């Protein structure tokens, strides 16, 4: 398991590219999770029993779809989504294309986390808002989201970390990224140096994100 410094220098540009690809994939799929998963999570919560948009049918259908997406192995999901990927990105390879399936995996994952976070809000505060005559929209914007924000930040952290893990599989469609670099060099090419370097980078990345998430969640919480 010799580690050669020369090899690291040699492959440094490759590592940089991979790092950038990881950022692209995570950036895109995280955005998708935020833009679509957040409202989906809110919908899941407010259509639940006893809440202001209670709608059992809608709630179960959404819940079921989310569970289905979460049951499908990522690689199968990736293949099943190729037509969608082509339609959206006009290509099926590269980090942008990989982001489509990552997004589809991240959206329901994050939606569930948002739902769980919202569930922690004190029912009393929601009631107080209803009693004051607030509209559902105001309750979502001014009560649910602010009250759950620290917990949602933690959810974002968890989503990013899971995306880093998933993005390692994006190599199947040439998505690249640090995880894929580890697999291509470490696994397929038996290059221990690169494997160790990339794994270290991954570990540092994950720890950094975790710490940043913890810090932010604590900093913005006014409790």
């Amino acid at each position, binding site marked *: 398991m010799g580690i050669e410094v020369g090899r690291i220098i040699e492959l440094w540009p490759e590592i940089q590219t991979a790092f950038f690809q990881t950022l692209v994939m995570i950036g895109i799929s995280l955005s998708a999770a935020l833009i679509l998963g957040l409202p989906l999570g809110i919908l899941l919560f407010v259509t639940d029993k006893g809440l202001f948009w209670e709608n059992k049918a809608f709630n179960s259908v959404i819940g079921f779809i989310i569970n289905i997406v979460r049951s499908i192995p990522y690689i199968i999901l990736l293949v099943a989504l190729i037509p969608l990927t082509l339609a959206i990105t006009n290509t099926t390879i590269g980090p942008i294309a990989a982001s489509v399936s990552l997004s589809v995996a991240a959206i329901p994952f994050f939606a569930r986390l948002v739902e769980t976070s919202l569930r922690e809000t*004190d029912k009393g505060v929601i009631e*107080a808002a*209803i009693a004051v*005559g607030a509209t559902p929209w105001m309750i979502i914007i001014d009560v649910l989201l602010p009250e759950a924000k620290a917990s949602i930040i933690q959810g974002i952290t968890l989503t990013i970390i899971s995306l880093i893990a998933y993005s390692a599989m994006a190599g199947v469609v040439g998505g690249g990224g640090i995880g894929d670099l580890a697999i291509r060099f470490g696994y397929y090419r038996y290059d221990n140096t690169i494997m160790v370097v990339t794994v270290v980078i991954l570990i540092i990345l994950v720890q950094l994100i975790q710490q940043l998430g913890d810090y932010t969640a604590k900093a913005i*919480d006014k*409790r």
Partner: protein
Amino acid sequence: MIQIQNLTKTYMTKRGAVTGVDNVTMDIKKGEIFGIVGYSGAGKSSLIRCINLLERPTSGNIIVDGKDLTSLKGGELRKARLKIGMIFQHFSLISQKTVYNNIAFALRAAGMNARDIDVRVSELLEMVGLAEKRNVYPAQLSGGQKQRVGIARALANNPDVLLCDEATSALDPNTTLSILHLLKDINRKLNITIVLITHEMNVVKEICDRMAIMQGGVVIEEGQVYDIFADPQQELTKEFISSVVSFNVPEQILSETEGLLVKLLFKGAMAGEGVVSDMLQKYQIKGNFLHGSIEYIQERPLGIFIMELKGEKATIAEALKYLESRATLVEVVGNGN
């Protein structure tokens, strides 16, 4: 102001139907402070939460200011709620918003613009004595201060009715007192109707005009607070009142008394205005107060004493007659040893 007509609220649970409120009819008048007491599970919260339709009644009507709330939906109901403030036991403030924004939230719900909100919030903060806590988050406030924010929020849209569900149960006695005075003040200044749930009779005694006692979803007694304290009808009511006006003379003391034990009750303007002193001067008997209190309920005194009377039997009998002619109630409770 608030007509509650044949209100019934039944909860459907897995173990079957649970009755919260059972066919209650009540009429709460404009500008009064109406207290509802009862043990846990009596249905007090269910009742008050039906008033602003936080809980939809199973049957019956709620008419506030002539409008039948049970017939309203969506936007109309929200509009009606602007005129019904509510304060909660656990304050229920938005923990992530400042005091200012917690109150501003209620005003935005009424569609007020930013400038007017600013003026109104300042006014409200002044009113509840929290002007300098404007930009502070709830976590940095004491319980009493949190409740003041709750009150300011409830009053934000100049409601006609204020509902309080155990608004002081989470507070210590001194803070409770200051909150009660604030409520009384508001009631007087703004002529707001207040419905107040509690299980502490002290609270009722302190500020309510009328009261109802609930048990098992039913109102078992209702009337002027003073009258109910002076002359409770139901066993449960007596039990509640005894926590404020209690007259259990310790065994040991009783065993040491020699004279006649009488319980005297004076109702009205000045409790027992000179009656006892007149009696003592008129008749040559010795009087000893074993127990007694004069409580001011609604600022009217209600005096209850247990006296030991010693002296000639005949004189005592005469003295008793005299007392009976002037006190509201004279009752011989023991005969000494």
